[in-house]
């Protein structure tokens, strides 16, 4: 990717993201957010974050793979459990990467 297009991309993302962050803080300083919009926005984080996580874990080699052969699925399952119980980022990372390397080393 050329340096110019990389910079333009970064600036576009930065500008767009700043607009998102500023949106209501700037505009609706004198108004309220419609209830439906607020409700809908609440589901953006879980939907989008899950959309980023699950394909990486459930897909292997370009296709959906839910067998125990899918090392990432196994490692991801352990990491999910740790994330749920501890809410600790470091532990989640360590568990996921640890299980992944362990399985790769053994099998």
């Amino acid at each position, binding site marked *: 990717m050329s340096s110019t297009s990389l910079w333009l991309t970064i600036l576009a993302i930065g500008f767009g993201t700043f607009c998102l962050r500023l949106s209501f803080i700037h505009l609706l300083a004198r108004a309220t957010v419609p209830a439906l919009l607020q409700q809908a926005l609440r589901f953006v984080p879980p939907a989008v974050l*899950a959309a980023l996580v699950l394909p990486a874990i459930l897909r292997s080699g370009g296709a959906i793979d839910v067998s125990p052969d899918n090392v990432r699925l196994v490692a991801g399952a352990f990491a999910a459990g740790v994330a749920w119980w501890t809410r600790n980022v470091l532990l989640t990372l360590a568990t996921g990467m640890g299980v992944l390397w362990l399985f790769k080393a053994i099998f």
Partner: protein
Amino acid sequence: MAIPRRVLADGVRDIAPILPGIVPFGMISGIAAVDAGIPPGTAMAMSLIVYAGAAQLATVQLIVTGALPVVMVLTALIINLRFAMYSASLAPHFRHLPLRWRWPLAYMLADQAYAVAITRFTHGEHILANQKHWYYFGAAVVMWATWQLSSAAGIFLGANVPPTWSLDFAIPLTFMALLVPTLRDNAAVIAALTGGAVATIAAGLPFNFGLVLAAIFGIGAGLLAESMRHRHRNRHEANR
């Protein structure tokens, strides 16, 4: 008005336990950027200009796969759509502030700074309305600095240490660590499951369209689940 130091310190104190979790995230973000071929200076600039870890990581992944810039921008903005939610949620608390305050406060908006602030504003010890932004500023600026320093450390590491292990699995893992705290009720879980399922099935679609579909279906499923829960509850109470 003099700086209300107590309120500012509260903000810093409340974000402090979360900082150790931000450090690895920032470092991975920096390492991944450099490993993807982004020059260190540009990587640091991205960290400062965008200041959004999940979007930065997704962008880096897309650079590696050679996606179109337009796709990268759209993907990043969909991922960052949640900042609009945070903005909507915090706006009432900053209503009284002049623009020169609101713009920097908006720039520093981040998941954890938001979470800490909204918790204090809605459930915590009372803060004077004209001091709330100081609490948020304390939390947000410390987190911002931590992120930038961690990213810089990661960029430096990535530039000087050859990539020996495959760190690319660390990226979905950090997303997972961000995802779990958002699953606060059944409707959110349903939104997540739907979004995740659609994204998995639609992963082959061009232009990363799968992510857009996942967001739409996930939000829709969440809204549906929530309305069904309300209807069930209302019916249950009517029958008593």
